């Protein structure tokens, strides 16, 4: 904003502009009390009237070595938080919306079993956004991939395009069973939102992560991958992690350890 104003109003080296730049620098310096101590933090203390920025990129680390067999806590926490009916309770389980699901994999040669939750991977280059004919499928500045239900026409191209089968279509009317924080409805595609309502509230975590931590497994870590001091960044530096279908070069927001 300030840059645009200075460019349009004055020439590059006008005294007006110099005064403006000087003032701007002084303001910026004023925000830092001492080196390293800032009055506000760009990453997490987002003011209500401030939009999200690409200074943050939300991501998740899944430690499959800690993910317990038979535990479904992340899935039920997601369904409780976001108001989708658990697939087991649904009348039509084959077409029931599912934002997160537990996978149990077995290596056919060694019989080794791996547990992991699978959900929207919040790609930096999301194929679902590429194919959406109305622009309803979009990536927010902070890396969260969402569906704008106001523009979604329910064509399901994105469900076809997603390599992770992460999206579902709501086939049935929901009859006012939605959570006030999580609007969702018939004829729209939906998927994991990284609990965007919680993130915007400043919780800095998601329902599945809370549930996993509460159950004592600590297999999930959520945080800002752009902040080198965040727990997720530290863990990603230490642990060898993989992206599922890394060959697609989508730069995923969800990273797996132990798969």
């Amino acid at each position, binding site marked *: 904003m300030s840059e645009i104003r200075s460019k349009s109003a004055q020439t590059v080296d006008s005294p007006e502009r110099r005064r403006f730049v000087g003032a701007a620098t002084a303001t910026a310096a004023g925000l830092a009390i001492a080196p390293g101590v800032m009055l506000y933090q760009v990453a997490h203390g987002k003011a209500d009237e401030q*939009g999200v920025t690409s200074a943050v990129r939300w991501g998740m680390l899944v430690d499959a070595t800690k993910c317990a067999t038979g535990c479904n806590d992340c899935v039920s926490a997601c369904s*409780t938080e976001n108001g989708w009916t658990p697939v087991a309770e649904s009348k039509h389980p084959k077409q029931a919306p599912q934002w997160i699901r537990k996978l149990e994999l077995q290596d056919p040669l060694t019989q080794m079993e791996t547990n992991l939750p699978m959900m929207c991977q919040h790609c930096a280059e999301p194929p679902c956004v590429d194919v959406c004919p109305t622009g309803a499928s979009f990536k927010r500045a902070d890396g969260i991939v969402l569906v704008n*239900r106001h523009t979604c026409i329910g064509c399901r191209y994105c469900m076809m395009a997603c390599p992770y089968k992460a999206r579902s279509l709501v086939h049935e009317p929901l009859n006012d069973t939605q959570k*006030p*924080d999580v*609007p969702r*409805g018939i004829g729209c595609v939906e998927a994991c939102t990284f609990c965007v309502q919680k993130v915007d509230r400043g919780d800095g975590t998601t329902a599945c992560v*809370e549930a996993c931590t*509460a159950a004592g497994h600590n297999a999930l870590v959520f945080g800002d991958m752009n902040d080198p001091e965040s727990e997720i960044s530290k863990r990603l530096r230490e642990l060898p992690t993989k992206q599922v279908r890394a060959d697609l070069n989508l730069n995923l927001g969800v990273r797996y350890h132990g798969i």
Partner: protein
Amino acid sequence: MSKMQGRWGRMMGLLVSAVLAWGGLSSAHAAAPKPIIEKAAKGEQCVEATDYMRRNHMKVLNHHRDKTVIEGIRTKQHSLKECINCHASEKTGSVAAAKENFCVSCHTYAAVKIDCFDCHSTKPQTSPAMRPLTVDGAHYTHKVAAQTGIGIAVEEMAGAAK
């Protein structure tokens, strides 16, 4: 010429009687009754002037919805959630569950279909312990309730277990 006059006369007569009939009808059946608008349970004054809101609430809401969905700006002033928090009926706890509820009363009168509530909840937010218990969610809901210090009744847990 007299034939023409006769035709004109007949047409005029028809017109006059039609006008009279219409006038009679409309005086017999008055315009549709004005909607009774429920007063907001909480709060004294809307975020904007009432006249402005009656005409422009959708402009305001549509603008805010784009800001919220795309940019993540969740200010309270023009948010639909806050409208619902304030205007939910004390009887039904909703803005659109019954005919006399806030949104529905006017929209029925104006014959304008609302599709907001195909996706949005018509009820205000309740505390985590108030969420309906399901078998799958019970475990987690209990944990959350324990953390917030709000208990869940034993009967409620028993109901969920069934």
